[in-house]
């Protein structure tokens, strides 16, 4: 039996909300796929488009940027900037022909451990049929 493809997902998660949410998922012993490589950033607003491109070019099959819900940002408005900037990144990546599932964003608060596990599960399920990301990967 052929092994199922296991996508590698880079997750840029904000220190104040999603990271705490992921911790909550951990301490609550909720299970989720181990495909995700979380990178803690201070704010989703600090995620430069370069991070996303760089992750894809270094072989990530999917990229997730996750931050606080609008209005809950620790720095008041960082996630609003992220939303605007990354919307453009998403449009650009789709425009040059990358599958839209490969770059995703989510809002996960510190209490939403269940939501975090669900997002990772969904992401893995969506990325599995696409296979490895070779379009932007560096040779």
């Amino acid at each position, binding site marked *: 039996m052929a092994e199922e493809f296991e996508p590698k997902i880079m997750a840029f998660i904000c220190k104040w909300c999603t990271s705490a949410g992921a911790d909550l998922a951990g301490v609550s012993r909720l299970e989720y796929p181990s495909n995700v490589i979380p990178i803690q950033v201070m704010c989703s607003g600090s995620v430069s488009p370069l991070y996303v*491109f760089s992750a894809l070019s270094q072989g990530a099959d999917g990229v997730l940027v996750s931050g606080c819900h609008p209005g809950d940002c620790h720095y008041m408005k960082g996630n609003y900037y992220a939303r*605007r900037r990354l*919307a*453009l990144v*998403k*449009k650009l990546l789709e425009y040059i022909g990358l599958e839209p599932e490969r770059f995703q964003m989510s809002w996960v608060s510190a209490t939403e451990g269940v939501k975090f596990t669900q997002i990772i599960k969904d992401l893995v399920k969506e990325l599995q049929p696409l296979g490895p990301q070779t379009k*932007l990967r560096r040779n």
Partner: protein
Amino acid sequence: MVSEDKLREEVKKLLQEGKIKYFIGYENGGPGWLARPAFIQQPEAVSRLIWSPGCVHNLTRFLQDEKRRRAREKNPDLRPVGLIVKGCDSRAINVLLQEKYIERKDVYLIGVSCELLGVVDEAKITRRLYPAKPLQVRFGAKETILVLTDQGEREIAASEVLADRCLECPANFPLVADIVLGEKINRPNPQPYQSIASFEAKSLEERWAFWQEQFSRCLRCYACRSVCPMCYCDECVADSIVYAVSADTTAEEKAQKVKWVERNPEPQENIFYHLVRAIHLAGRCVDCGECERVCPVGLPLRLLNKKLEKEAKALFGYEVGLDANSPPLISCFRDNDPQDFIR
């Protein structure tokens, strides 16, 4: 109609009165129809100035050189620099003002209205007139362009030879200027994003195949970056050799410079470079078309820039360069920005 005599007269007056340091305009560029940038310092030299459909350059790019020169000099001449601006160039000035790269008093702008015409596209005019060679272009009456070729003079409908960007221009008259020459006639602009419409309609795989083929041709000569009036950073993230290194730079500082993109022209590196370039121009590109014009391998870079311009308008209602007092696109937000793509 913009009168060249009036233009020369105004520039001469400015130079004689010492109001400006020097003037950047256009002059005849040798045997072809394409004008070239002219730097006028003496009042007598104003006779070199021209205004024709061959004046394609965006002269605001030279403000970067001026800014660097000022930073270098001990006692810089702080008088403003005179400049011809078309509609598109004036939007570039607005963006530079928005970003506080220049101050309004640093420049003295002579705006020229393109009226119902614009500038000529090299490929289009060559194809249209083949086998005749265009030698000189002039604005004609009633939306035509008069072309002097080696086989006599021709009159061509403007819509046949104007650059695509001129046909889609959102503001064909200068939005910011000290003196405006020519009439302010609004060109009807029924399909502002026509050039990308057919491309957007393609499937994901077709789009990928197209870009992969295009980007694999890129030589990474960085001409698109050099000519862009918006690419003014001293250090470019996409190019590791322009990191500012002085005698005082410590090894630690050097080690901390992140090399995001390799310089070798491999397809994947090229894509990275062009993605970075495109996203850095989101909400800043004024569609002056210079990157596409100077590209030695003819990459369709406008296609990328125009897409982000369109998305900025569709998602955030933002139009580039119309107002120097509003914040730049990604330095502001609205509470109701679309977030349907976020889980």
